[in-house]
């Protein structure tokens, strides 16, 4: 990282910005905007990529910090709930990868769509599900965003289509979202996320092909955290430069631990897709601190030292925090206050998610079909069939 903070800008730049009234707020004595230099992007089939000189407003600094920190805090809480055996089954934590979701979301417009894989908690939150909606979904309770019926891997909200538990299957669906945007004639784009493990699924290549063939506005995002479960990228892929694997599709490699770099790459990709130039493959180099899922201590295929080193040198939150404090966009005290607020919000949500009720037994047979053709659903025995109930909004009913 080669930060170029506002403070260290040349005098000329400072004067100009001051003249525009952008740089500081006299009363509170902090900058309202700062410039930073990101790591260079790597490009594939692109003559020009995103710029490495990026600016960040104080408001965005606070927002990104808040979002990343909320995800981290939520995931820590999820890990604890799992250890307490309140969360069952699968639980894949996003800790370490926060900058990818936050950076991409910062570049999206309200009508852009997102779909991801089973590591969905962070994305669900960023797309609009409050911490209680995520945590109660994890505990399988009624306040969950899918009323507790989906669980860890299946969360949904407006323009967010999950949460798919079948590795790689979400990628064609994402291209379908892009096809729909183009079909409807909006300039919307779709973001289809997958890991370095899923990047080897055949269907991903099938839809690279069609997305480019038809120039669909799809941003393929490979969140390369280094491991598909316990198999390192190098042991799974003959070509680990995932941003090049779309063949004729332009690709961008971005430091996925730097929220500003991710936002810049995503802005570039959105612009590319929304102006009819077809898809982009974006590889975000990131890292997951936890094991693949809760049953994986994550230490048999990598060392504790490796994890420690990433935490100390590349952590997306710590590095961002240092950056925005040094740039005088925020003060350490302000961030401390935010930390306390987040802690209280997530703790409160956790408490509620634990105490919340599960949905009523009658919902076992609710929402199997949006237009149910059978009034009754067979029970375990034929003797007491269960009525089919309709509850959800069925967004595509009409």
């Amino acid at each position, binding site marked *: 990282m080669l930060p170029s903070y506002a403070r260290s800008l040349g005098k000329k730049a400072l004067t100009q910005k001051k003249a525009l009234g952008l740089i500081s707020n006299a009363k509170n004595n902090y900058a309202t905007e700062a410039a930073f230099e990101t790591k260079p992007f790597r490009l594939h089939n692109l003559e020009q990529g995103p710029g490495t000189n990026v600016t960040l407003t104080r408001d965005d600094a606070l927002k990104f910090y808040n979002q990343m920190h909320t995800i981290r805090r939520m995931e820590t809480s999820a890990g604890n709930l799992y250890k307490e055996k309140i969360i069952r089954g699968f639980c894949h934590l996003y800790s370490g990868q926060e900058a990818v979701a936050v950076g991409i979301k910062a570049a999206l417009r309200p009508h852009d769509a997102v779909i991801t894989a089973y590591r969905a908690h962070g994305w669900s939150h960023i797309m609009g599900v409050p911490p209680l909606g995520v945590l109660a979904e994890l505990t399988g309770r009624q306040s969950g965003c899918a009323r507790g019926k989906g669980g860890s891997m299946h969360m949904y909200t407006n323009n967010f*289509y*999950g949460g*798919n538990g079948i590795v790689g299957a979400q990628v064609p669906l994402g291209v379908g979202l892009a096809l729909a945007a183009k079909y409807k004639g909006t300039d919307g784009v779709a973001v289809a996320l997958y890991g370095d493990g899923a990047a080897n699924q055949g269907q991903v290549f099938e*839809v690279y*092909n069609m997305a480019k063939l038809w120039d669909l506005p799809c941003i393929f995002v490979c969140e390369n955290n280094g491991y598909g479960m316990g198999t390192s990228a190098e042991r799974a892929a003959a070509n680990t430069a995932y941003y090049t694997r779309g063949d004729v599709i332009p690709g961008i490699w971005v430091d996925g631990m730097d929220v500003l770099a991710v936002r810049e790459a995503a802005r570039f990709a959105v612009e590319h897709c929304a102006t009819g130039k077809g898809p982009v493959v974006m590889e975000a180099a990131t890292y997951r601190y936890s094991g693949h899922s809760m049953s994986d201590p994550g230490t048999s295929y990598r060392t504790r030292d490796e994890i420690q080193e990433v935490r100390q040198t590349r952590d997306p939150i710590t590095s961002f925090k240092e950056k925005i404090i040094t740039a005088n966009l925020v003060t350490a005290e302000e961030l401390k206050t935010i930390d306390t607020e987040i802690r209280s919000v997530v703790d409160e949500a956790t408490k509620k998610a634990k105490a919340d009720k599960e949905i009523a037994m009658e919902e076992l047979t609710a929402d199997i079909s949006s*237009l149910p053709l059978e009034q009754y659903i067979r029970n375990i025995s034929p003797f007491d069939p269960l009525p089919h109930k309709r509850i959800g909004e069925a967004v595509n009913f009409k």
Partner: protein
Amino acid sequence: MASIKPSSLLNLASRTLNRRQFSFTTPAAAKQMTVRDALNSALDEEMTRDDRVFIIGEEVAQYDGAYKVTRGLWKKYGDKRVIDTPITEMGFSGIAVGAAMAGLRPVCEYMTFNFAMQAIDQIINSAGKTFYMSAGKINCPIVFRGPNGAAAGVAAQHSQCYGAWYAHCPGLKVISPYNAEDCKGLLKAAIRDPDPVVFLENEILYGVQYPMSDQALAEDFVLPIGKAKVERPGKHITIVAHSRAVETSLLAANELSSKGIEAEVINLRSLRPLDFNTITASVAKTHHLISVEQGWPTAGIGAEILARIMETEAFFQLDQPAIRLTGVDTPMPYTKSLESAALPVPKDVVEAAKKLLKIK
């Protein structure tokens, strides 16, 4: 078994029975139409009615469809709404499902359902389950269609019925139409339905002409999904079938009629939901039941029907055990004589009926 009624057929031989032809809604005057054209007109009408409807699949556009079901539609509606895909079932199925989740109404064509096995995850896990997993938020209005079941001389990988596979899965609606009227009315219903529908056509029947009533020719002709049709009324034995096996059963019923046996033939039309009420009403009248299908026996559609009979009061209506006629429990051979022996023919149905009715 104490409460089984005595046979209602004791005096059968002495009865005077009319020999019947196939029973159609409006015989003689009705216009004839092939199954292929009926499907084509359903697609055409629905594409005109709703601009969210589009067709996606291999060879559906410029080639006019591998089996010509989409003939002329590309010329009429253009590239946007009739989309030729590369040979990539899993990919284009997922794209179609994603487009449905985003509010479009895709009709996803498989050149045959054998190839849909490459995409079955997208059909079941993505299309069939998302509505439930999202607690009723995201429904998926999509039709998966194409020829299903055994064709002729195409060997094991291209001769298989997927009726039972898809009918097994909650969240899907499954249609297995028989004739032109079925195809038109049910395909239109499938396209209008807000949930994922698997629509299993039959290759052999594509070119067969059936009468179309005036109602069936109309643009607003839609048949209800989940309702069976009594193709031929009868009182001595019930024969339940779907797809091409309906034809087999009607031919058998014709022959049985000449021997004084009036078989009631039920065309299931839908496999999920299964119209069990129509079956039990018939069994209550005939007290004998045969299911006929081209699919395999184990965990098949007939197995499901018979199991449901066993579980209900309908069981007490039976004078004889209900039986299944199915494809032989083997992959399909290419060998012509063996292939013929692998699927039920009218003679099998006639013999089974005579056996159940204890008639020589």
